């Protein structure tokens, strides 16, 4: 694990930094998708993996960010870059407001309520509430990226935009792990009652995790909207949330695990296109098998520098 952190990450970053020049247009698009969905999966990891809250509605915040960018750009003429602060803030605020009344719910109930939020969100988009979401077709014809007057129309520009967002997310996550809120969330996940009894305000930290995860997912939404220059409701369906939920748990809620999950779920099918109809059938089996063989995920997360003899078997990730 240590070696992976010391050498794996710089190598990964180096490879990803030169990657777009070795790929053709189609694979560049796949690579962007990989980056964007990695960011969403990592944001889901903050809520589900790091804090242990059964959230199955992460696509809601992803979509909210994407729609914020699309609406501001398409209806109000804001440049894409200028929409970023709101595309982070609006999902984050919604995350906090939605989480407020529900974080006290027991695991499975929380799961169903977050599915509910996701479905209500998609239905609002489809019914074109307020006349700005474009109904079932969504919004298309967004501007390309413009930074300091340069019009960056190429896919490579979008790739680096997505790459910067991913690096930012990784930075936030590594800081989170070393910070007070990160430790609080970890204790909270391991044992909520114990966390409360040592003075951690579990409610505040749970809502904080929701807000942070929502904000990051919203930022990923901006990149997604930029990549396709369009948004539509079905991209943020709750099935999508189910995939992110599964990716985090199958991966094991560690950064390499989650990224591996995204790779398997979204990149591998592009390689085996002729088996497209078998995709989810095979994934379903893979999910069952992965959980039976490695119930704590393929690459289980480790936290901080806790000596091995202090970790009770099986207490992690319950």
């Amino acid at each position, binding site marked *: 694990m240590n070696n992976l952190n010391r050498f794996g990450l710089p190598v990964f970053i180096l490879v990803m930094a030169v990657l777009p020049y070795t790929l053709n247009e189609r694979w560049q698009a796949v690579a962007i998708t990989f980056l964007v969905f990695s960011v969403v999966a990592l944001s889901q990891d903050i809520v589900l993996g790091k804090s242990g809250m*059964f959230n199955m509605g992460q696509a809601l915040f992803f979509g909210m960010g994407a729609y914020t960018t699309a609406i501001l750009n398409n209806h109000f003429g804001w440049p894409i870059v200028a929409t970023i602060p709101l595309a982070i803030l609006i999902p984050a605020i919604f995350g906090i407001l939605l989480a407020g*009344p*529900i974080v*006290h*719910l*027991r*695991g*499975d*109930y929380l*799961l*169903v*309520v977050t*599915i*509910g*939020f996701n*479905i*209500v969100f998609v*239905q*609002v988009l*489809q*019914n074109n509430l307020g006349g700005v979401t474009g109904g079932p077709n969504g919004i298309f014809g967004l501007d390309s990226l413009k930074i300091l007057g340069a019009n960056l129309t190429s896919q490579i520009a979008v790739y680096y935009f997505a790459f910067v967002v991913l690096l930012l997310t990784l930075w936030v996550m590594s800081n989170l792990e070393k910070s007070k809120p990160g430790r609080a969330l970890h204790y909270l996940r391991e044992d*909520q*009652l114990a966390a409360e009894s040592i003075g951690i305000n579990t409610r505040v930290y749970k809502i904080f995790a929701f807000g942070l995860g929502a904000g990051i997912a919203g930022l990923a939404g901006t990149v997604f909207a930029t990549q396709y220059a369009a948004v539509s409701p079905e991209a943020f369906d709750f*099935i999508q949330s*189910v995939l992110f*939920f*599964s990716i985090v*748990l*199958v991966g094991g809620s560690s950064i390499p695990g989650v990224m591996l999950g995204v790779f398997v779920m979204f990149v591998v099918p592009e390689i085996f296109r002729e088996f497209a*109809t*078998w*995709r*989810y*059938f095979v*994934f*379903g*089996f*893979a*999910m*069952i098998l*992965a*959980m*039976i063989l490695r*119930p*704590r995920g393929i690459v289980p997360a480790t936290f901080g520098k806790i000596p091995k003899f202090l970790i009770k078997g*099986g207490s992690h*990730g*319950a």
Partner: protein
Amino acid sequence: MDIFLQQLANGLTIGSMFALVALGYTMVYGVMKLINFAHGDMVAASAFVGLTIYTQVMGQATSLLAVIVIFLLTALTMACVGVILERLAYRPLRNAPRLSAVVSALGASLVIQNGIMLVWGPRMRIFPELVPQVYWDFNGVVISMIQVIILVLSLVLMLALYLFVEKTRVGAAVRAASIDQDAARLMGINVNSIIALIFIIGSSLGAVGGLFIGLYYRGITFNMGWQYGLYAFIAAILGGIGNIPGAMIGGMLLGLFNAFIAGYVSSTWADAFTFILLILILIVRPTGILGERVAEKV
């Protein structure tokens, strides 16, 4: 008033289908504390299995006897699938972290849903007209024979299940296992057989629900399990998950609520209103209408 009575009849019909499917969720949750995400897809699969039994085995016969055989064969097939599902996907994870079992259930759901697609194709299929199209008109309120059959048969099945769980020795074992598995085991109850039994009952009731969905809506698609499964699951939660009479009441209430939303507001908002109702109920009464108020287990 006509709209009210019409939607009342429609609501009771879909409510009884929700209730039948919800029983499968609630019984499994009661004993295993697991949301069986694959249950909705099992329901969808049973509609397709029924279709195939009708065309391949029964030679498209629609006599009363043939219909009964179709129902029994479908229920039997799905009961076997349910037992196999539990054996392969859930039993190995019984002592694993809760979330691992949830992911396994999601995986099983994907396997069944896409299995249906691979076998029967991705397009909508039309379910056969097993019941003659007879309608009765009561001063503008139209009730079909299918609706009456669905309602009566559902009520009979639910009553039978209720009596089985409350009045028989095996039913007492089911209740014991859902209160405390370990204690039940110490009392000499074979929890593995109880769980298998629950999957047999839940899957058969789900199969009847799936056939009803086919009879009532006619069009069946491979991915309809998510939709109906989610509704039935909400019904189970509304009634207090793990609670068998609760699932029946929850199903009926949800069916009525849905029908009235469709009748008085708009069917395009039905999902949103349903979930808003669910969220409100869970905020006010986090364990459902009939659920016991239990403290969070430590």
